[in-house]
């Protein structure tokens, strides 16, 4: 491990002022590297080839931390699959199989049937992007849910086909540009709406379906832990910004995701047996432009001179308002589990607001 950039004199000085004496290695752990000693499960290891600031890599890492080692994964074709398993290397520390773009849910069904046949409890996870979930893999997913397989399906939603270079999917938000929904004289980006997948999933009356966001890691991980404990099909869609496809700075991944939630365009909800049982209230609702303006894919909506831009902005604001109204997202009073309360940090990772 390199610690470049921290020169010795500076270290000595800082140690004098702030430092603690280095602790001796723990008994019996002398051989362990700091990486191996991390107090969390590294199901998705470093060295994967995701872009800088990849929201999906982060989301998958967060999910794996909670899912733990006794799982196996069926992974749909997509960025996550490609950037984690360039042979002969793999970033996974759990049994993992990639078959095709559209069959992750079905492969997971088979794995789960195998575990049942063998009388084992190893939980099966299925991972897919929005393309593999909202679109081409949707049928297999519906079948898996209907057959009530004990599988946690996680959709890493980055709102377009990023693996092949940013083509629109049914999850792409209205008015966003992609290479197949470009803005031009005749068009203001994608003409259609983002598919309301969660409602369709909910209609399967499965025990648990929820949306989560990389910006709210604690909330995301709580949902994963809950789903892991359910004996039956569960579904999680995780809003995972793509700096490349959304055209924002790589450092802004969390900020963008946070604003998507705070403006109401990506509501965080939990649905059990078809009924909404929990939502994350928004303490301070932001205008959608706070979210849109950070992203190049909405740049055409930011042109003041274009009346169509104003109309589309108003449309997106109306969609956000709709979510806020339908799901009752506006927080009545500060709450430890609202958008602000959940994010609050404290010293030593103490769970101030972390559930």
């Amino acid at each position, binding site marked *: *491990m*390199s*610690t470049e*950039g921290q020169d010795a004199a500076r*270290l000595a000085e*800082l*140690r004098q*002022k*702030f430092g*603690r004496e280095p602790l001796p*290695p723990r008994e019996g752990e002398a051989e362990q590297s*700091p*990486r191996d*000693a*991390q*107090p969390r499960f*590294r199901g998705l*290891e*470093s*060295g*994967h*080839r*995701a*872009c*800088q*600031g*990849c*929201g999906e*890599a*982060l989301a998958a*890492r*967060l999910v794996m931390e909670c899912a733990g080692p006794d799982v196996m994964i069926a992974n749909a074709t997509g960025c996550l699959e490609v950037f*984690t*398993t360039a*042979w*002969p*290397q*793999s*970033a*996974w520390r*759990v049994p993992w199989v990639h078959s095709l773009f559209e069959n992750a849910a079905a492969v997971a069904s088979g794995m789960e049937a195998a575990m049942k046949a063998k009388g084992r409890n190893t939980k099966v996870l299925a991972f897919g992007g929005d393309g593999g979930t909202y679109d081409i893999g949707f049928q297999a997913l519906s079948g898996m849910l209907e057959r009530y397989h004990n599988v946690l399906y996680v959709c890493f939603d980055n709102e377009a086909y990023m693996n092949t270079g940013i083509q629109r999917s049914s999850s792409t938000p209205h008015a966003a540009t992609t290479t197949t929904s470009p803005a031009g004289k005749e068009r203001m980006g994608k003409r259609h709406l983002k598919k309301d997948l969660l409602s369709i999933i909910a209609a399967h009356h499965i025990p648990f379906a929820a949306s989560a966001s*990389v910006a709210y*890691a604690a909330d995301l991980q709580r949902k994963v832990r809950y789903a892991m404990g359910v004996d039956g099909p569960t579904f999680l869609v995780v809003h995972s910004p793509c*700096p490349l496809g959304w055209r924002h700075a*790589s*450092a802004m991944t*969390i*900020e963008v995701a*946070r604003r998507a939630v705070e403006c109401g365009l990506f509501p965080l909800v939990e649905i059990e047996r078809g009924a909404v049982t929990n939502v994350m209230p928004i303490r301070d609702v932001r205008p959608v432009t706070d979210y849109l303006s950070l992203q190049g894919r909405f740049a055409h909506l930011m042109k003041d001179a274009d009346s169509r831009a104003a109309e589309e902005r108003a449309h997106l604001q109306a969609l956000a308002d709709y979510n806020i109204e339908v799901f009752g997202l506006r927080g009545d009073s*500060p709450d430890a589990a609202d958008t*602000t*309360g959940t*994010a*609050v*940090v*404290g*010293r*030593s*990772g103490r769970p*101030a607001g972390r559930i």
Partner: protein
Amino acid sequence: MTVLTRGAYAGPGTSLDFKTGNWRSTEKPAHIHAKAPCHAACPAGEDQQAWFAKLQEGHAEDAWRELVSANPLPAITGRVCPHPCETACNRVAVEGALAIHNVERWLGDEAMRRNWAYPVTEPAEDAPDVAIVGAGPGGVSAAYHCLRHGLRATLYETAPEAGGLLRSAIPRTRLPRETIDAELARVLGLPGITLHTRARLGRDVTIDELKRKHAAVLLAPGCQEGKEWSVDGAVPADLHEGLHLLKEFMDHGAVPEAKNVIVHGGGNTAMDLCRIMKRSGAETVTLITASVLPGPDADPSDVINVVPRELEEALEEGVEVIEHATINRLIMKGSQVCGAEIQSLRKLPGQDGRSRRVGFEGTERVINVDMVIPCIGERVDPEGLNGLVDHGYLRPSDRFGRLAEERVLALGDARGDRGTVADAIGDGRLAVSAVAAQLAGESDPPADARGEMPSGGLNLGYYEGISRAVAPKLAVADRTFDKEIEGDIGRAAVMAEAERCMACGNCLACDNCWTFCPDNAVIKTEELAVDGSHYLFDMDFCKGCGICAHECPTGFIQMLPEEAGG
């Protein structure tokens, strides 16, 4: 040679062979300790953020020890300091500054209640001995810091007891005697400090003599002489100079009677006198000050230099303030003053770039008074100072207080540009650090060059509004000349207040970087992170995306340019 596996499977975690660290092209993250603004603003040199961190960990004694590494008198400063730290506090951007002084005071009091030991040891018998003239807060601070540097200290005090202006110029309503006695006793009782009272410079000891006997001489005599005050040559026969009046009050508990009083000045002495006069029965007490009251539009450099809560309390008690004003002339009836003409003024930049105060014609008005108390400052009594006094003050050549004479340094009010207890305490610390370095044959300790972390450098999304602790106060009607007005906030409020500290520019150990790194390139470690954080960057895998820096609540992580070829 890599050999194909059947079906091209790969082993677990083998991606660690693929070092994505070489994907960084422009920037890399680094831990950048910046000064929290409280620390940057503290004249005593306290690092409030550092001791709040200890409190956040639940360790009050550690917090106190961190605190007294700069300031040995927290029970006193927690009561009297105008706390520029709170003015600077970034928390203002969320919902309001931390109640730093209340917490400091509690820590000081708690240390005395629990008899926590100062983190110093007795210097060697033959350790160099530093002479300190004046046992006010600056002198006591200097003596204490001598111990921290392994030096012995000998204090020479004119008065019968140590304390200086803490005793002579601060009303008991702000600083009870018991607090002064107890905290000073604890410091002065530390082995290695010797106190000679009733030892007057020029009469009982001389600088030359001290220089012979001691490794260095620190001059902390304070300002004992009132400045001459006149308005267009008019001086009332019964002029009551502020500091003298205050001392008189402290000694005898009474002030001359007056009906309508003007206090002229802009410091704590003026403020104390306003309140004393009001409480003594004056019908109107008006403070005329060239400065401005604190407010959203006030230029910070122009704000009246008083403890803000004192001002608040004074206004509560009925003291009137005319800001941006000065006295143009006195209206006399014989040698008695019966009125004063005041005029509005502003601080404006002059042609040479330096600001000056400009009076505005046509804003003159007259108010009727029967007493004018000028509180425009005091000067050093030059006796015994070997002619080191220059235009009323000891004017050192550097921040350590060095004077023209070798091994002689000045600190505290005597330097003329100070004015607070905290300034004096900070001077004591700095002067001793220079002396110690010099004795060890080292160059002067470097100034802390760290930048200050502004609120814009924080990610405020990770903090939520928590209301500030409110200290109990005597009701206006219950306020006397003896009883301390502001009370203790108590342990629970202290701990709650600590939660509000945002750790500006320092590691909060919140895990955000560890949580949000998409590349698992932040290593959480207690063993290896020696820079005050809990984390290391694994540069083998960091792609330089910058998420950790953006999501660092405190601004502790910043992106630095990737060195060329590095």
